[in-house]
């Protein structure tokens, strides 16, 4: 066991640090819309030009072909430098891309992967439906096979950045007679295909982030199917596992930075009666626990990486990381909110962050579903009733 960087890793870290310092965007990331699209794609293009895109992706599709530890170093340095998160590029880089690498045909990989890395396209996700949330396998968006096309009719929801995306990873039901997990197909949908309409679904703070997407006999070439027809569940599960893998590193480092900032703020802040909030035993205890658990989260990330290197595929570690990162993020936002006292009645960065933090135990698989996964896959408990 060691935490030492090899000379190569050390050199890599130095190089990343210098590059980020010189190249990270000066302007802050727009919240939504075409401005966000332009900003995120420009940042991705810059990273690609600098040789920093797809660090752990295969070389033949434009990646660097390096190991998970270099990827981890990049995420850590990026978060430390305060460089922007992937934003609207997240799905392409962390879901769509990895799924294509694992499951797609050569033609699909050659066409799509370089576009994602070069910052030419935005991807979105079409998994959840109004009637299929946690019970994802209950999805009913129908795809009829007509010659060499799928004809898709139905609706998807919680589609982040769907209104500014080029492509969608879409799950459809190709066999309505088969049981739930069977009969689902994973297909690449071009968001400009005729028959697609998009309705914005405002987030709690009214930012336009979510969408509902409607499909009215949208014709998608069968050549866009990734994996087997009716084999989409298997393809989709590799995506979700990636989401629960090392993709949390940036959030974990940002969280650790935010916790240290919060402790500094708490040390100097006084409540309306003039007492130091830091002297408040409850706040002190909560900050202590938050800092200790944030340190544990970092260690967990390293352990998960060490295990992934050995078994070559993500295990249930990602669900445990997700449970902890979401719990700590919510606690951070709650403490921050308590420290601003009556400013809670105003919409500001702190109150907005607090409102947004609730989504962290829902998006990407609810906290309850993650607990089911841990119970079954870590502890070997039987399936839930």
């Amino acid at each position, binding site marked *: 066991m060691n*935490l030492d960087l090899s000379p190569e*890793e050390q050199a890599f870290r130095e190089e990343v640090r210098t590059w980020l310092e010189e190249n990270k965007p000066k302007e802050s990331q727009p919240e939504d819309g075409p401005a966000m699209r332009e900003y995120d794609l420009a940042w991705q293009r810059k990273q690609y030009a600098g040789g920093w895109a797809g660090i752990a992706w295969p070389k033949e599709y434009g990646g660097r072909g390096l190991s998970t530890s270099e990827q981890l170093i990049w995420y850590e340095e990026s978060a430390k430098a305060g460089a922007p998160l992937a934003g609207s590029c997240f799905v392409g880089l962390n879901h769509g891309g990895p799924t294509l690498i694992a499951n797609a045909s050569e033609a699909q990989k050659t066409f799509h992967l370089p576009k994602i890395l070069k910052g030419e396209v935005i991807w979105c996700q079409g998994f959840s439906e109004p009637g299929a949330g946690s019970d994802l396998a209950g999805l009913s968006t129908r795809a009829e096979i007509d010659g060499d096309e799928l004809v898709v009719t139905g609706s998807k929801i919680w589609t982040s950045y769907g209104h500014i995306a080029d492509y969608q990873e879409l799950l459809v039901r190709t066999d309505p007679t088969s049981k739930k997990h069977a009969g689902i197909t994973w297909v690449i949908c071009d968001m400009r295909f005729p028959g697609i309409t998009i309705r914005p679904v405002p987030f709690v703070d009214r930012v336009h982030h979510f969408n509902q997407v409607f499909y009215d006999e949208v014709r998608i070439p069968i050549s866009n199917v990734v994996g087997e027809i009716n084999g989409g569940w298997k393809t989709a599960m590799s995506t979700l596992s990636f989401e629960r893998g090392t993709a949390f590193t940036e959030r974990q480092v940002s969280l650790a930075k935010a916790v240290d900032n919060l402790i500094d703020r708490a040390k100097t802040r006084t409540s309306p009666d003039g007492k130091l909030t830091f002297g408040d035993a409850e706040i002190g205890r909560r900050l202590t626990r938050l*800092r*200790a658990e944030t340190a544990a989260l970092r260690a967990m990330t390293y352990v998960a990486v060490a295990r992934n290197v050995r078994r070559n595929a993500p295990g249930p570690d990602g669900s*445990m990381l997700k449970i902890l990162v979401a719990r700590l993020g919510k606690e951070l936002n709650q403490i921050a909110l308590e420290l601003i006292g009556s400013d809670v009645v105003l919409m500001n960065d702190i109150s907005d962050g607090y409102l947004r933090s609730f989504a962290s135990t829902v998006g990407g698989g609810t906290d309850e579903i993650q607990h*089911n996964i841990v119970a079954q896959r*870590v502890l070997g408990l039987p399936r*839930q009733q």
Partner: protein
Amino acid sequence: MDLYPTNDQLEIITSASDYLSRELPADRMPKQQGTTPPRGQWQGLADMGWFGLGLSEDAGGLGLSVIEEALVLREFGRHLAPPSTLATVLAAHLAASAGKSDVVEALTSGAQRAGFALPASNGGYNLLDSDGADFFVLWTEDAGVLAPREAFAGVTVVRALDDSLQAATATGFDAGKATARDDGATFQQRARLLTAAMLTGNAEATRDLSAEYAKTRIQFGHPIAVFQAISHKCADMAVDCEASAAILQYAAVCVRDGSPEAELYAASAKYVAGNAARNAAANSMQIHGGYGQTYEYLPHFFLKRAHIYQSLGGGADGAVILAAASTL
């Protein structure tokens, strides 16, 4: 960078786990009579070299690091080994750093052993695992002190929270009779780390015990594990154990390397594992229903030990965690 045990370390874990499952299975506890670890049992642990694992060979140890010590003590925690095992490991370090090689020899060979002395709420001292203890480790936020039994005055045997251990109270302590004293940060870090190891093993054993019970206890025609009210408590234990074990390993590397992160990570490891162990044991008592309220089942032993280990060190962990320099 690799936070995974080496093959040698995996072998040490396996040999400790095999030995303890055979010689010190946790389910011995409800039937145990008396409060002194049997002579033969104690000698067996000493013969495995576990009381001098992290001491240099010159100092009479096996010359391994604090990482191996932590990995073995985690197994001790799983098997409800008495707190005197942790005390004896720390005592040998205190004696070694004071150059008391005869005391090191007596402790690592199994001839003598140590218990813990804790400052009591009435100004005196609580002595724990005192039956047959030749020395006591008095670990406060300022220092680690090793003192012989005769340094304590007015010793009266009382009942311990955990009936498998002997407790005593002492009215006075003569610091002048101490064998060794270590005011250094390294002692505090090692002591926090190794206590975290006992707590991590404790939490992990509680997790496994609870999952096993949930799989086999049938109600309403199903194992109770199919109900989320039960399985999600178990899943929380799994997440807490994962966090405790991960930070234990991270902190162990930091302490071995003398890294600037050692202060934050060793204190956080004890804090996180302490919460994990207490919460797991409390939930385990609930999952075990009526049986969880009896002396015959194991959850209460893990709960009592969790409180014991959490109370060691003078309660300074929180202040250390908040004051430690940022490592970002």
